[in-house]
């Protein structure tokens, strides 16, 4: 495998390349922004229509009360785990190849959490009732039920979102200072001056920065695991057939890391081209990301099989019937597609030649995420369509166009936020790439000296 990054890149050149990306992306950037805006417009239109006409237009009614909204909510929460994986876990493991790509993964975390949060409100229908999820007593001094996983969810997501934003911001301060020092006067310079907080790169600042970054990273890892475990508790703590499974929390966490990694590959390929980051988002780094994704895919596959086995051997006839219905009933094409995309498609990542093939990996990453979205849908809807009682059987349910429209719009919303972010905030961490180049060139020099000494 070649080098992750060229060791002779001048530091000034790194600044220039990344700053250029803020001002001068390829035209495809504007095409993506336009398409995302259109998609978001469709979502907003559907939401306005649903708000005015009532939840009936979404086709949500007993027993199918969650539909695509909650399935997509879980999908976006899952997507957010990529940032924590690349930033925090790999940071603690001293995997420095993460440095050119972790910033956009952190941004993904933030924006996917924001998108997920929207789905809770869309799902509520009556937006003003959102405050029931806030730890605040009503006029009769009754507090929300702190023993409900739904309230845990609200708190966990708020904690994760705010901590991720803080982590993203703190990690970007040295880069904001670079932008402040090198960009032409104007609104951008004013913005970066404000965001840099007067950073000068003094030894005192770096010393405290290092400890802070490490500490927040240490907090983020258990937090990320707890967030998706709690989302899994929304299901596993209920009595619905097929959900009352102890392996749900690790299954959800593995699925989250999986979809997050797949999304990193997709965005890696897009950013690499759009912002001309070929020197930083290199093929060896793509290869490592692909291998990591494959490993997580296998963990997910194992846990997926465990989930089936848990249901099969639970002797809960209704839960078993739901599983059989998934494999042979109305949702069978989607269930099999989920298994195919989630467990079979990743094997293409084993082919060395394909690991660095941009078109193949782009297609594979999209298929993996399709599989992960289908997974969430296949958890939610078949169970609601096949409950314990006759009145909980719904053999005709199909999501309405309004639901599909809002789900479609959410991808536009996420893409829009993400692309605007990449246009304003350096999506490659300049100071960390410099560190990477510096430490690697130092190691090479030491190795050369060692060899010479040996002779």
């Amino acid at each position, binding site marked *: 495998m070649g080098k992750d990054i060229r060791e002779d890149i001048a530091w000034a050149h790194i600044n220039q390349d990344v700053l250029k990306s803020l001002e001068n992306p390829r035209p495809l950037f504007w095409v993506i922004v336009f398409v995302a805006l259109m998609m978001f417009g469709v979502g907003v239109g559907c939401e306005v229509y649903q708000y005015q006409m009532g939840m009936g237009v979404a086709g949500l009614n007993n027993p199918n009360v969650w539909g695509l909204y909650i399935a997509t909510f879980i999908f976006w929460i899952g997507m957010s785990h990529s940032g924590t994986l690349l930033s925090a876990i790999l940071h603690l493991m001293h995997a420095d190849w993460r440095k050119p790509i972790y910033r956009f993964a952190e941004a993904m975390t933030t924006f996917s959490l924001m998108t997920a949060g929207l789905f809770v409100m869309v799902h509520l229908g009556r937006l003003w009732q959102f405050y029931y999820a806030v730890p605040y007593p009503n006029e009769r001094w009754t*507090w929300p039920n702190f*023993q409900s996983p739904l309230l845990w969810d609200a708190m966990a997501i708020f904690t994760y979102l705010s901590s991720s934003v803080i982590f993203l911001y703190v990690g970007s*301060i040295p880069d904001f200072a670079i932008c402040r020092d090198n960009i032409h006067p104007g609104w951008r310079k004013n913005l970066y001056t404000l965001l840099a907080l007067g950073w000068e*790169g003094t030894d005192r600042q770096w010393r405290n920065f290092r400890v802070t970054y490490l500490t927040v990273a240490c907090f983020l890892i*258990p937090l990320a695991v707890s967030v998706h475990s709690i989302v899994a508790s929304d299901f596993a703590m209920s009595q619905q057939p097929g959900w009352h499974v102890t392996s749900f929390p690790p299954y959800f966490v593995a699925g989250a890391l999986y979809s997050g990694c797949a999304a990193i590959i997709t965005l890696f390929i897009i950013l690499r081209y759009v912002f001309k980051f070929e020197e930083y988002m290199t093929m060896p780094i793509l290869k490592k990301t692909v291998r990591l994704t494959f490993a997580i895919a296998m963990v997910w596959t194992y846990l997926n099989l465990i989930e089936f086995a848990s249901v099969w051997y639970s002797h809960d006839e209704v839960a078993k019937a739901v599983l059989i219905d998934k494999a042979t009933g109305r949702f069978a094409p989607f269930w099999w597609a989920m298994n195919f995309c989630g467990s079979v498609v990743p094997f293409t990542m084993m082919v060395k030649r394909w690991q660095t093939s941009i078109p193949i990996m782009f297609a594979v990453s999209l298929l993996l995420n399709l599989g992960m979205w289908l997974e969430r849908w296949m958890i939610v809807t078949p169970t609601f369509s096949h409950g314990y009682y006759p009145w909980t059987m719904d053999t005709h349910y199909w999501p309405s166009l309004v639901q599909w429209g809002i789900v479609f719009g959410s991808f536009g919303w996420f893409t829009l936020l993400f692309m605007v972010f990449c246009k304003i905030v350096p999506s490659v961490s300049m100071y960390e790439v410099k560190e990477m180049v*510096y430490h690697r060139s130092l190691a090479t020099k030491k190795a050369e000296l060692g060899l010479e000494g040996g002779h």
Partner: protein
Amino acid sequence: MSKRHMLALYNNFDEAEAVVRELRNSEIKGFNAADDLVVKSPIEHPEVEEFLGHKPVNVQWFTLIGALSGGLLAFFLIAGSQANFYSQMKGGKPIVPFPPDFVLTYEMFILGGVYITVLGFLICAGLPARRSPLYSAKVSTDQIGLLVRVDDNSAATLRSIFTKHQALEIQEEAGK
């Protein structure tokens, strides 16, 4: 005695390190390397601490206090709200159930830890701050800066040390 600031820029850490070692070993009137010397660099470089001497980092104390207060606040808020149920029938269930309350206590433990850690970072790193008058944008690109505060009388000695080690540029603040 009036003091003035001087900033010398170097091409790499090795040159900067040599200067710092000489400054630490020299007897310069009105200059104490521990208090009057600041190293500015474009990257985080742990070796800077080695040649600069150990300086404490206190962010962890903020973390400890933040995490503990977050967790305690959450637990007592939840337990306090559940204490309402003294006047209501609970059917034999505990008034303050520990397992479900642990989840939110855990979340708030982390939330408090993160928020107060960042607050601690800002306090300990002295941010937000006005930039010093001798700031050079080259420090955020690829050069290492040594900012010193020195008596007017000793400025020439400092300048000669900087020059001896091939400083790329020396900036000097007017005497105060």
